[in-house]
């Protein structure tokens, strides 16, 4: 069993089109490290060059915003569900509309 990570539409190009992937780790930081090993290039979209979570990316562990938990040190365990959600997108928006 592993941790399920939900990938927002704009980043699914990096996960071969998958909206959900499995990863391992004890904290959100470790989890993102594992995500990067499996899908190279994805971490720089979620974290800034210093490795801090980008300002407009929200991460939820089991529906709880990690800003209200322990931030990127929030513990995760097998069976948890982690969602990565761009702040402005309301869940599933790619950010580009064609008229």
């Amino acid at each position, binding site marked *: 069993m592993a941790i399920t990570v939900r990938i927002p539409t*704009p980043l699914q190009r990096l996960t071969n089109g998958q909206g959900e992937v499995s990863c391992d780790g004890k904290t959100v930081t470790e989890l993102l490290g594992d995500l990067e090993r499996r899908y190279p290039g994805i971490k720089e979209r979620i974290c800034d060059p210093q490795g801090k979570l*980008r*300002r407009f990316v929200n991460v939820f562990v089991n529906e709880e915003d990690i800003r209200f938990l322990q931030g990127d040190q929030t513990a995760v365990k097998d069976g948890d569900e982690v969602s990565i959600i761009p702040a402005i997108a309301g869940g599933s928006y790619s950010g580009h509309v064609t008229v």
Partner: protein
Amino acid sequence: MSYVIGLKCRECGRRYPKEVVFVCEYCFGGVEVDYDYDAIRRVLTKTALASRPKSLWRYRELLPIEGEPTVGLTSGFTPFFRADRLATALGVRELYIKDDSVSHPTLSFKDRVVSVALTRAKEFGFDTVACASTGNLANSVSAHAAKAGLKRFIFIPADLEMGKVIASLIYQPTLIAVEGTYDEVNRLCAEIGAKYPWAFVNINIRPYYAEGSKTYGYEIAEQLGWRVPQHIVIPAAGGSLITKIGKAFKELTLLGLLSEAHTKFYCAQATGCAPIVTTIKARADIVKPVKPNTIAKSLAIGNPADGYSATKTVLDSGGWAESASDDEIIEAMKLLAETEGVFTETAGGVTLAVTKKLIEQGTIPRDESIVVCITGNGLKTQEPLMNRLGSATRIKPTLASFEDNLGDRIRGVSAR
């Protein structure tokens, strides 16, 4: 003729063409409009401005449209005046009010952003516009879209004041009352916007829409005789107005229309919904969302889209922030009306109550110039004032009844 170069991410600086892009595809930061200021400097002079119509479009070079303006031709350029009676009440020397409570046609500063957003939406070829709103934006999109002949879907929280509901319905939009907070309405609209080809003015057209707020700042500078105040107190819901007044003053300086701008910016929110004030006071980087509970419903945004940039504008300027309780809001609405004859909505009460608090704290000095930003009209938010203002004296249509009932008010008045 357009002076827009393109769009640029506020976070990482990546550039985008001037299309319907509102979020950076790389880092998810908000994007904003970038202009060719060298070209603007050559045409936007004080002399040129002096002969232009008194509307927000007099600053057209600094607004993100491609052709001529088509919406809101009579909006903007609202009254700006010295408020000496209010200054005396607050114990300060130089106080001004910028009064968008009488903005044409829908009595709030939202006419500015909507004029720009709908002009741009028409240029993009949209035939339907939409918005998520705490009320004023709903009124403004409903009205301007009616005049522009656009279809309109307006989403509001279901518990809005009756005045704001009626002042939307009269324009016959499709009005959708969502059972939830504004933040839930907004989130729903983002999903709807991803599915339907509509111009959501405060979502997918946001970079263009938000630029309209700059005109509030340009007007203050021009109406003050091409200078800026030392202090300005601004209400915050999503935080965009603070950010854009900051941008406006910077642009005017860059264009040589202001010699220098050292204004301190202050953020005003209701205590029952103060996520930006909390962030400023903590000098923090991240705005923590809250669940709003305040009579200032037009400011009841718990997860403010521009909370971070508003925080940065305030702290970089050396300003500060405060919040006001429901009682303080009502007292300030009454004070503004009694001293200056202006009936503002609850949000204006927030701004004035916070101004008073900042002066009493000594945060704003009593002998420096202050501008209070009044952004909406009290006729739209009457519910909280019920039973707070006393009532009319009811009499029979006779002189005897008048004198019987008003004895204490007319005693000592020498009758003819």
